């Protein structure tokens, strides 16, 4: 009885509110929500405004130079390795690009080899061979559990630093040299008709895609399997070599040569790059191996059994049935491993590999004293690089996702 009455009263109140005196605008939930949003934006705006103006005022007061003018000023110091021409008289802006390219270089090398190592050891975990299985477990357990910095030091100071001096280099056929200062390999320098070989290589790569499509269609029609992998390799090597032979070998080989203190000529791979790339690949590879293992284990045993009953070989079961399905689990994990690898590449500073962090946040910051600007620029670069990785991996993820019909 009492309940009924209360309900009636509420309803009446609601009616009164709807008609008659209109409700105050601030009681409208939509306007209210908008108001709160506005307040928040204003508050945040004020917060950042006061932070930034305070920083600028204080830097002025303490006599610290501000602004991005230093980017066009001459740096006056040298960088060990640069993918673009660089001299000590070039600007801090150019140092920024040199460092960025070096970071990208070591990241790409690291990601490539980490992926290869990860897939090899991840799949090896399911090998029928006891020894291979144990090696895979050992690899993961050793390299996953040792701090990365320690591994970087290990490869640099314990392995590469013990190589012989420049004058006592290890050499392979007097063409490839290895010493404490790096790996020196011969370089092919093309002349007039060298472009024919380059075109041939491009044709071979394009040919692989055509071949794959053709082989797939043929298999669908006739059931016959074409050895695509081996044919592709033969094409990539065969076509350029044939082109070179036909055009009469239009190139010279530049061999590294000991002149004075160092080897000059050819291509030099500095030990800092080797140590960092090896450490990053091996370390990240151990995590990727675990991701691959998790992916493969997520496929029900029934899939393998069904494939076997169709008479597929173990190798083909892996490459045609298991791995494509496992990719759905592996790809999201790969994404974060790749991003970690890029971020971990900043350990370059410890061994003097001239990556962005080392040459820009290290030396440039120290020489100019402009901490806010250099750190901000570097943060933005790592942010963008990782966003790009994320974007590409999401595309890949969509490609390998289950297609529902």
């Amino acid at each position, binding site marked *: 009885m009492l309940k009924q009455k209360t309900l009636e009263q509420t309803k009446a109140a609601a009616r009164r509110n709807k008609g008659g005196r209109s409700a105050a605008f601030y009681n409208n939930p939509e306007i209210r929500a908008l108001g709160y949003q506005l307040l928040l934006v204003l508050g945040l705006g004020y917060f950042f405004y006061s932070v930034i103006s305070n920083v600028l005022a*204080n830097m002025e007061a303490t006599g610290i130079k501000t602004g991005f003018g230093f980017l066009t000023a001459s740096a006056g110091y040298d960088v060990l390795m640069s993918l673009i021409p660089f001299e*000590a008289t070039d600007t801090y802006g150019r140092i920024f690009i040199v460092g960025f390219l070096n970071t990208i270089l070591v990241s790409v090398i690291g990601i490539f080899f980490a992926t290869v190592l990860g897939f090899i050891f991840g799949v090896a975990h399911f090998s029928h061979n006891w020894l291979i299985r144990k090696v895979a477990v050992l690899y993961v357990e050793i390299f996953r559990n040792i701090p990365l910095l320690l591994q970087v030091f290990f490869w640099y100071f314990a392995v590469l*630093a013990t190589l012989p001096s420049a004058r006592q280099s290890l050499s392979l056929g007097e063409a490839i040299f290895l010493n404490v200062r790096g790996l020196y390999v011969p370089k092919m320098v093309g002349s007039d008709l060298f472009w024919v070989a380059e075109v041939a290589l491009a044709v071979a790569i394009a040919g692989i895609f055509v071949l794959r499509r053709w082989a797939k269609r043929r298999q669908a029609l006739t059931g016959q399997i074409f050895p695509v992998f081996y044919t592709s390799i033969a094409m990539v090597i065969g076509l350029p070599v044939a082109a070179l032979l036909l055009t009469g070998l239009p190139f010279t080989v530049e061999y590294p040569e000991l*002149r004075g*203190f160092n080897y000059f000529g050819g291509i030099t791979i500095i030990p800092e790059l080797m140590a960092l790339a090896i450490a990053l690949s091996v370390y990240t590879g151990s995590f990727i191996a675990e991701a691959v293992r998790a992916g493969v284990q997520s496929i029900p045993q029934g899939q393998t059994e069904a494939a076997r009953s169709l008479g597929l070989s173990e190798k083909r079961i892996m490459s045609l049935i298991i791995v494509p399905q496992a990719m759905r689990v592996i790809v999201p994990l790969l994404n974060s491993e790749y991003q970690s690898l890029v971020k971990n590449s900043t350990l370059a500073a410890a061994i003097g590999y001239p990556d962005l962090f080392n040459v820009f946040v290290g030396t440039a910051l120290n020489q100019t004293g402009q901490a806010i600007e250099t750190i901000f620029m570097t943060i933005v670069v790592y942010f963008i690089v990782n966003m790009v990785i994320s974007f590409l991996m999401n595309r890949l993820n969509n490609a390998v996702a289950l297609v529902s019909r």
Partner: protein
Amino acid sequence: MHKKKILAFTTLAATLVTGAASVQAATLDDVKARGTLSCGVSTGLAGFSEKDANGNWSGLDVDVCRAVAAAVLGDADAVQYKPLTAKERFTALVSGEIDMLSRNTTWTHTRDTSLGINFAGTNYYDGASFMVMKNLGVKSATELDGANACIQAGTSTELAIADYFRQHGMSYKAVTFDTSDQTRQGFESGRCDFLTSDGSQLAALRVGLSNPSDAMILPEVISKEPLGPVVRQGDDQWFNIVKWSLNAMIEAEEQGVTSANADDKRENGNPANKRLLGTEGELGTNLGLNADWAYNIVKQVGNYGESFERNVGMDSPLELERGLNASWKDGGLMYAQPMR
């Protein structure tokens, strides 16, 4: 290393964000309230700032920290040492993580004018030089065309060597390391043909080699590197204290006041001695310190000459000559402004 850098940067950001007051605060009051002086030193450089097996720091740069602590707190041991790499040092100072920096730091125009810091004097006149292994067969820096150089990152030497090679039309490869220890390791492993740094550092690094007699220092001195203590810009009182603490050490040597005879000179010395040691005049009060500030420095740390001989001179493994660092009376550059 990274953690320390991040910490320094965060503190810097925090100080810059939270208003001018904290930056301008009187360092003297902070130090007195804390009871210890926080002094930035190197991560380990024989003769200049080095930690022994018992955790005690010593060296020419450490003695400047000790002198300031003696002047301000009356106790040369009331110092907290913060080991910093060349890259971290200025950020640590500007952020207020340390009260002063005494870490073989070269006084240059750019640093003095654009980093928000002030150099409080020179406690060692140095110049960049080269160290090579004897078996390389090099006798002069002009023979180093095409060679590899081991350098510590973020130092003024990095700039000096680029200038030198450019000027002489020679090329080189710079392999830069974070700490002087890593630089030495790189040199010893043969990664570089020569190691370049300030002459005094080379002497110290050479002593640290597994076989010092294998290496030699080339005769060329390619730059001017006046090293000295540094303070934050914007606190003139503190700037004066550090400047005059160093001057007191130099002046004491000039006057012949040593840790051994300071007590005697305080009572029976000439007027200049008495002014320096606080029995006459108001030098201490003007700095905001006690009258016996310089007495404490000389008594507990010693004069500049004593400090030099003990840490880097003939009484030390470095065996450096006084050279430019002799008192002006003996033909050197060490010259204190008049104490009056």
